[in-house]
């Protein structure tokens, strides 16, 4: 049997290697807020004839829009991101570009948010994540109420959950300054879905550990936990793979509108599999035994395999 619990410090180290640079990136660069959070106007323009990015930028400057992010959006379309402009200004901008570039423009999508709307979103998002985490902590404590120290199970699940969230957010922070990936309301949706899905995996593992405790598989808690984890290994990997298949299909084929949502889910679910197998149960053992304890020569449990 694979000893996943015995190697716990290695797993903690691996997580630290991912999380620490991520946190540094978060602290230095933060996340790149989309218009939902920072207010502004974002639009995708479709041009009837091919237009160079430099031409477009020049034309925007001529119209008095200096502070515009211009990104190609595929198939000759361009994505513009500028400070909030009114409906009249939008129409003028479009007409100005049409005259300047001598082409017809279709605004295939437009999203404009005022500071008044953007202001509360960050706070509400944080409240939502905290509420979800606390609710899950309480639920798991309740679900494992028959175990000794049920609160520990809840806490360890939530720590593993926070681990997953930090990885997702950290990777988006890095993607923000490397690839210009912005976070929007759909990113938050993805993060909260990760909250649900990642704890889902942890609960399955904990459920197995609980069952093995009831069966009295071993006297050594570490051995019990390891059994629980290795027994869930097949299930966790298979479910994870199945979920990743569909999400990957969605990411590659599903169009750009939901990219941030799907990417957050993809990272979160992959991390969730790892943390459910390599972090959550191991944390229970650490809490029980401390970080450094060596395993006693555990008596081989009577089990027919």
């Amino acid at each position, binding site marked *: 049997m694979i000893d996943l619990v015995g190697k716990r410090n290695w797993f903690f180290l691996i997580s630290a290697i991912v999380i620490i640079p991520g946190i540094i990136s978060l602290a230095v660069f933060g996340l790149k807020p989309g218009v939902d959070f920072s207010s502004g106007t974002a639009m995708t323009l479709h041009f009837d004839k091919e237009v160079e990015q430099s031409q477009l930028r020049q034309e925007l400057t001529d119209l008095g829009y200096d502070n515009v992010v211009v990104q190609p959006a595929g198939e000759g379309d361009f994505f513009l991101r500028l400070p909030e402009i009114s409906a009249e200004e939008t129409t003028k901008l479009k007409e100005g570009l049409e005259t300047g570039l001598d082409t017809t423009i279709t605004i295939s999508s*437009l999203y404009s948010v005022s500071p008044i709307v953007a202001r*509360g979103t960050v706070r509400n998002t944080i409240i*939502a994540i905290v509420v979800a985490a606390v609710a899950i902590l309480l639920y798991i404590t309740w679900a494992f109420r028959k175990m000794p120290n049920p609160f520990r199970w809840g806490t360890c699940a939530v720590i593993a959950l926070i681990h997953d969230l930090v990885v997702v957010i950290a990777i988006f922070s890095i993607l923000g300054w490397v690839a210009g990936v912005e976070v929007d309301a759909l990113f938050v949706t993805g993060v909260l879905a990760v909250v649900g899905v990642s704890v889902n995996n942890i609960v399955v593992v904990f459920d197995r550990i609980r069952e093995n405790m009831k069966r009295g598989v071993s006297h050594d808690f570490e051995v019990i936990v390891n059994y629980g984890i290795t027994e869930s290994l*097949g299930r966790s990997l298979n479910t994870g793979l199945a979920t990743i298949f569909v999400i990957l299909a969605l990411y590659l*084929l599903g169009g750009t509108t939901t990219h941030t949502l799907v990417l957050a889910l993809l990272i979160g679910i992959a991390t969730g599999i790892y943390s459910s197998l390599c972090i959550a149960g191991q944390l229970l053992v650490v809490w029980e035994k401390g970080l450094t304890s060596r395993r006693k020569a555990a008596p081989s449990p009577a089990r027919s395999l």
Partner: protein
Amino acid sequence: MKRANTPLLIFILVLFGFCVWVIFPGHGIFGRDDFKLGLDLRGGSHLVYSIDLTKKDPAQTDADVIEGVKQKIERRVNAYGVTEPIVQTIRNERGSFVLIQLPGVKDIDEALKLIGQTAELDFRELVVDENGSPVLDEEGKEQWVIAKATGSDDEERELTGKYLKPNAQVMLTQQTNEPEVAFEWNSEGAILFEQITQRNLQKPLGIFLDNQIISAPTVQAVIKEKGVITGLSLEEARTLAIQLNSGSLDVPLTLVERRDIGATLGEDSLRKSLMAGIIGSAMVILFMIAYYRFSGFVACLALLVFVVLNLAVFKLIPVVLTLPGIAGFIVSIGMGVDGNVLVCERLKEELRRGRTLGAAIEEGFRQSWSAILDANVTVFIACIVLYWLGNTFGNFLVIGFATTLFIGTALSMFTQVVVTRTFMRIFVGFGVAKSPGAYGVLKK
């Protein structure tokens, strides 16, 4: 146990048949014959206006003002001719807002003008000096003052749009074919208008909309009930007629959020997501059958039931399907596999322990139930919080995802526990797939 299987199977088959019938186009109950697509899939405009309550008449309550704004906007939007518009009010600590969705709207600029304008119409007299020539302000412009007259109760009243009957119409003038808006005063308005036209004979009378002059025709005769407003383009005339009939807003609105999605982008997204869903599901089915053999096959049958059930529920509730909503559904397919994987793994394990097939199936389901339940509750918690969050944002995309993921998770529990188990029992009962190898367990 066995006796209960046949009625269950019949129930499942009837339910399945019904759901398949429901999801075909043009079928459905309660008049729900089509899937409801969100704005991001059918194209259209999503607008949020902030309601400026500081400008309200102190005599009115906030709730009345907000309700009035909502009703008037509903009237405007309905008269504009959009199919299935949505008008909702949102009140939160940031203020009061009215949210409007206009699916399939073509000319958004015109719609914005129609909805956002206060549309306060009034009639004004030119300010003149003793000699009868107009008084000019610093910029050399003529000055106007709202025309007042004595009402039926001897009170002095301003002549504004609120005395109009809600039957203003766009007409084309006979000779020049220019558009004009024909209006009619109610009895009070007629009393005021008669006095005002009388004293302004052969003088201009300014017609103002939201403090902007539209036209200033010269009064030719004393008029009581009727009049026309000229000097507008056809579009403007149409907009004004709708606004006059809906009534002016009591307070000004400011556009604070706007999301436009082109119809072609919507269609494109829908096609792409469906393709992703089909390919993703196909991969899952292949994987399940390759890895779990017979039980994987049964799980996939259950998955089919799950998908059909889900789609039928989407149509019947009805759930407004958005792109993130479809993503939520596709994720729930992945999660729906989860319960089946749990059961299949258990089954393999019990078979390895040397149980008979029948006993292994019962044990497999019994043992996996606690994990399925506890694990899915956490997903429900996340969905409920997301739904709340989506509501505070007024973000239909977030709500769409939370809704479909919630429904998908609930239905996947149902299919895992009821459908997969019944299928397994029936197949085992018929003596199909007796060898443990069919479940992915190697014989010793």
